């Protein structure tokens, strides 16, 4: 009887658990590598690692694929959504087309960070400060320099990617940039350590500091966002998703150079292809033919090592871990893949096997049909005009190559020592629809400028304004003061054309960033404090001493020098001791009480002025007129 009841109970429980299992989300992890050869012998490699954790597990501190270190920071600072970017180099839009992932997974040169933080303004500021300091420690980047002078609250430039719970007090968006931060291996290592396989297996095993930081363009991104099935789903249906992306554009010939012989020596003449059509082509004159066709490369040669098997964690949906975007005619040889697929467009998909090295080899091939690269939405560049240490101008050029007008949001976060004059803001061939401007306060906050600009079809908009440079206090200069100061890049958000239909593929907003700028400020002569101290000290030492002597010094006869009380006491003490010793030892004492004043007799100036001549100070020695000094 009891056994039957138990079995019934257990089966009911099992059914109950199974029925609910589908609605409670699981911890998931997936990784994906996207490879695409670019024009000019470059290769675009995009590593994406996505881990999700249900919010319930997150709140209960139960982590499997989600990195605990980051999660604890986010919990402590009440961060709803986080986007952190490390970027280096430039994406060549003319040769390579539009930016990968519409520019949503890259940042400006250096470090860029924006986050939605719960709380009201001062609370949010404190939490933001905690967040940047903790992230600075976690990623070995000097993010702690993102203080109030570098933080802005953009209005239109960024939209939350996740579903923010509407019940909480409302999150504030804070944004900070550090353009001079050098991104290096020390930032890559913590990034890899946050992955479940920690860079030892799976596609992350390809990531090596030497190759990654030799790339022409690279960007590391960490994006944390809450994802809910619908806007008013319950909290336990939501998951927190972390996406770690490493995107790079490598130069294939440079990456394939042997690590032990990295110097690009001029190749032997036999290896250079000469242009035979030139009349004067000969054994000593060789016009180098521009390279046509595709270079041969392989993953092992480009990254220095093959992929060390699959990362066994996470579910393998059979969706393929590696995609190679090449035309159909391109020869591709894959070694060590579990399965491979070829799509009609030429896209190859491979999936990895555990414990088997994977490599993709593309041999050299003559011209294949070049894949037409898409036009980027916009070409943007920004420069400083003028020269000198007092003032300058900012000049931004935005070119729209498409036959339809575009609307953009142009965001600039300027340091407080660059003082723009908004009345000189002028725009040519475009018009400013809206402007959000927060003026700067010295040493408190910088300028925040956001413009909504409409750019007509096939035209170039030029934006100009004048600014003045501030003179800093001499302690505010960095050690390399004559280099100048860095101005953060401008962030341009190209608004989607059809806001009505969010499902439309063309409808994502795209981001691009200009390069950072160097602002030369007037530097003082840093040796001046030293000069002033030396000069003043010399003047005081020589001048004060001489003048004091002239005023105070009085010449007296040696006999008139009164004895100092201390000397009298010391002499008496010595006599007592001598007497004591003389008593005990019973020796003939021939010690005379020493009464000669020392070579530097201390004289009280007041006493000297009052002319008190103590008779006890008279010595047996000759009365010499001596210089008595204080």
């Amino acid at each position, binding site marked *: 009887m009891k056994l039957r009841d138990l079995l019934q109970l257990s089966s009911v429980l099992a059914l109950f658990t199974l029925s609910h299992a589908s609605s409670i989300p699981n911890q998931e992890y997936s990784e994906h590598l996207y490879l695409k050869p670019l024009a000019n012998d470059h290769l675009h490699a995009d590593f994406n690692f996505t881990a999700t954790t249900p919010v319930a597990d997150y709140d209960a501190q139960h982590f499997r694929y989600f990195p605990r270190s980051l999660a604890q920071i986010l919990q402590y600072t009440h961060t709803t959504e986080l986007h952190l970017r490390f970027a280096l*180099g430039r994406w060549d839009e003319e040769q390579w087309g539009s930016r990968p992932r519409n520019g949503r997974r890259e940042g400006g040169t250096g470090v860029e960070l924006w986050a939605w933080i719960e709380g009201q303004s001062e609370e949010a500021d404190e939490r933001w400060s905690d967040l940047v300091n903790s992230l600075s420690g976690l990623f070995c980047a000097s993010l702690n320099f993102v203080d109030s002078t570098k933080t802005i609250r953009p209005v239109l430039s960024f939209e939350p990617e996740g579903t923010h719970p509407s019940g909480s007090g409302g999150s504030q968006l804070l944004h900070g940039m550090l353009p001079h931060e050098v991104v290096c291996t020390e930032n890559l290592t913590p990034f890899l350590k946050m992955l479940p396989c920690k860079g030892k297996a799976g596609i992350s095993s390809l990531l090596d500091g030497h190759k990654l930081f030799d790339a022409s363009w690279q960007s590391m991104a960490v994006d944390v966002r809450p994802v809910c099935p619908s806007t008013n789903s319950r909290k336990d249906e939501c998951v927190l998703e972390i996406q770690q992306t490493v995107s790079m554009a490598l130069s294939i010939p440079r990456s394939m150079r042997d690590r032990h012989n990295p110097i690009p020596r001029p190749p032997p003449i036999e290896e250079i292809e000469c242009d035979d059509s*030139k009349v004067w082509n000969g054994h000593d004159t060789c016009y180098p033919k521009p390279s046509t066709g595709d270079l041969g490369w392989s993953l092992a040669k480009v990254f220095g090592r093959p992929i060390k098997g699959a990362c066994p964690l996470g579910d393998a949906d059979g969706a393929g871990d590696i995609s190679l975007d090449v035309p159909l005619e391109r020869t591709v040889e894959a070694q060590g893949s579990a399965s491979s697929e070829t799509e009609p467009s030429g896209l190859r998909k491979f999936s990895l096997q555990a414990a088997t090295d994977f490599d993709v080899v593309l041999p050299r091939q003559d011209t294949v049909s070049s894949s037409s690269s898409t036009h980027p939405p916009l070409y943007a560049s920004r420069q400083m005009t003028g020269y000198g240490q007092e003032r300058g101008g900012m000049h931004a050029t935005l070119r729209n190559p498409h036959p339809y007008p575009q609307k953009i949001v142009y965001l600039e976060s300027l340091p407080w020592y660059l003082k723009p004059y908004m009345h000189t803001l002028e725009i040519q061939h475009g018009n400013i629809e809206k402007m959000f401007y927060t003026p700067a306060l010295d040493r408190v906050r910088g300028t925040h400028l956001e413009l909504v600009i409409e750019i007509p079809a096939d035209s170039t908009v030029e934006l100009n304004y004048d600014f003045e440079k501030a003179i800093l206090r001499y302690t505010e200069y960095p050690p390399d003061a004559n280099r100048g100061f860095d101005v953060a890049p401008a962030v341009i958000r190209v608004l989607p054309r059809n806001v009505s239909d969010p499902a439309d593929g063309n409808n994502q907003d795209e981001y691009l960033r200009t390069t950072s*700028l160097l602002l030369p400020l007037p530097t003082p002569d840093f040796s001046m404090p030293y000069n002033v101290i030396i000069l003043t000290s010399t003047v005081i030492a020589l001048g004060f001493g001489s003048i004091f002597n002239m005023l105070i010094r009085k010449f007296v006869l040696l006999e008139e020098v009164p004895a100092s009380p201390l000397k009298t006491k010391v002499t008496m003490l010595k006599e007592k001791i001598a007497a004591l010793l003389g008593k005990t030892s019973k020796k003939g004492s021939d010690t005379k009480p020493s009464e000669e004043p020392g070579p530097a007799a201390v004289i009280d100036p007041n006493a000297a002025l009052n002319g008190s001549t103590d008779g006890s100070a008279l010595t047996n020695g000759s009365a010499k007129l001596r210089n008595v000094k204080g």
Partner: protein
Amino acid sequence: MGLSARLLTLRRSPVLLKLPPYLSAACIVVGVVWLLLLPLNEYSRQTYVSENAILPGQVHTYFGGSEHNVFRAFRQEAYDQKDASEGHRNAVLGRIMRESGLKVAEQPYSYYAAGEEIAGTNVYGILQGPRADATEAMIIMAGWKNFEGLVNYSGVALVLTLARYFSRWSIWSKDIIVIISPESTYGPIAWVDAYHSTSPIVTATQNISALPIKSGALQAAVAIDYPVGPWGHRFDKIDIQYDGLNGALPNLDLLNTAVSVASGQMNIGCSLHGISGHKDSYNDRLRTIAAGLATQSLGHATGPHSAFMPYHIDAITLKTVGDGWHDEMSLGRVTESLIRSVNNLLEHLHQSFFFYILLNANRFVSIGNYLPAAMLIAGSFTISALALWVQSGRAPLPEKTPAQPTDEKASALPPMELVKAGPDAALVPKPALQSVDRHLFLPALTLLSIHLASFIPLYLLTHLPRSFLPPTLHALTALSLLLPPTLSHLLPANTRDLQTLQSLSLLLLSATLSTLATLNFSLAFLAGLLASPLAFVRPCRSLPAAVLSYAVLAALSPMSVTYGFAAWYWGRGMGLEGVLAEFARGWEAQGVWTMGVVWCVWWPAWVGGGVGVWGGVFGKRT
């Protein structure tokens, strides 16, 4: 007590007013001798590299091997364009740059000066350093025609080969900009003006188009001048040119790095100002100083590098001279090593000197040692001005002149007065104790009008077409010679007014020259030296004395110096018209101040001196 009393009585001493001309002469002599002392070892120093980051000559240069073949090909390509039109040539050069991976653009420009148009199109390319952050850039450039007008085939080819060679390296912390301008003077000026957007507006004298693509802040520029065709020519030394517009000089570190790399690492000798065979003797050093003084005082461009100095960008030109055994690969390696050193820089060059005079490639004189020379010469004018001022405030003692009717007999003494100071007493002539009011209005007005009138010769000599320039100069000379006598005849000025006028004029001259000495030492020194008779001229009573003084003044006037300069340049085929056109172009297109200093500072002072001379003959008596 005694000292101050003695000083006060010195005020009345007649010696005091006789002393200033000797003091002025002494100042001028000491100033010139100062300059002649500079070549000695005690007053100069060895050059040294101040910026630690530069590490000159520490890199191994790999330029060579198959790059030589590529260089010959590019040189042959350039040679094939020698008769082509500028557009076609720029297209070919741009194509070569594009194939090396640079981003290429062109910039047309035109200047209009002295009635003729100087136009051209620069072609330039930007090599974006793969790991650079686009905030800084360095420049290598070559003009299609070098400064002497020869076609710079090898220079252009070397710059293109270096660009291709540099594009394979990923060590660049700054972008590299490669510029090829049609000629070596106005092309770079137009380019760097457009880079900083300083002249975006089209005016009658210039039309500079904006640059389509730009990079970051410019740190340094190196230009190469190697005018040899495909036949090749091995050179002996590298001549380093470093003068900029208006006498600005690059940071000495850039020069020291170039010399250290060339002579130390590559064992190629370096010369300056084209002086070959420099034996490091006193004469050779003095020759180098003189050459430096000449180019700096003229302030005109001497190569592609000159355009960059006004923007505080350090630039030099490497020019090959002589017959030897160094070839283009050595020059390429020198440039590679120099660019690698500039690449090392973390900050803009600021450690070393910006004001210096070079004696040879390894010795220099810093500003503290040479500036007193110009200051003393300017000081001579100040002493004269002060002496004249004091004189103009004194009632003149009646002099014994036979032509002058006096109330008193010539032998009678003027009325005397007893002056007591302590136990001393003296008899002093009464007029010496009288103080008189100076009339400032007339002298000041005269001086102001002369200065305002000086804009007329400046305008005429810079804006007229070149064929009109020599007649204009002749007319100006004639008018300038007639102006002082006319003015002194027309002005109702007595001796004291003339002295005030001269004093104010000399004071203005000395203040301007002292200030100019800090900006352009050579111009201030030479202008002061040539204007030195102005400190000694005084109102002359007799006509022969006046004519003699005026002749001396006219011999050292701005006009005669211009004629002398043209005569010296006659041998180079320029003639008076060429020289005047060059001055006009310098003022209009290059922005050189020399004409302004000569006509607006020196010429008014000269006229003032002339008025002073003739005022003694024509002016009113007291």
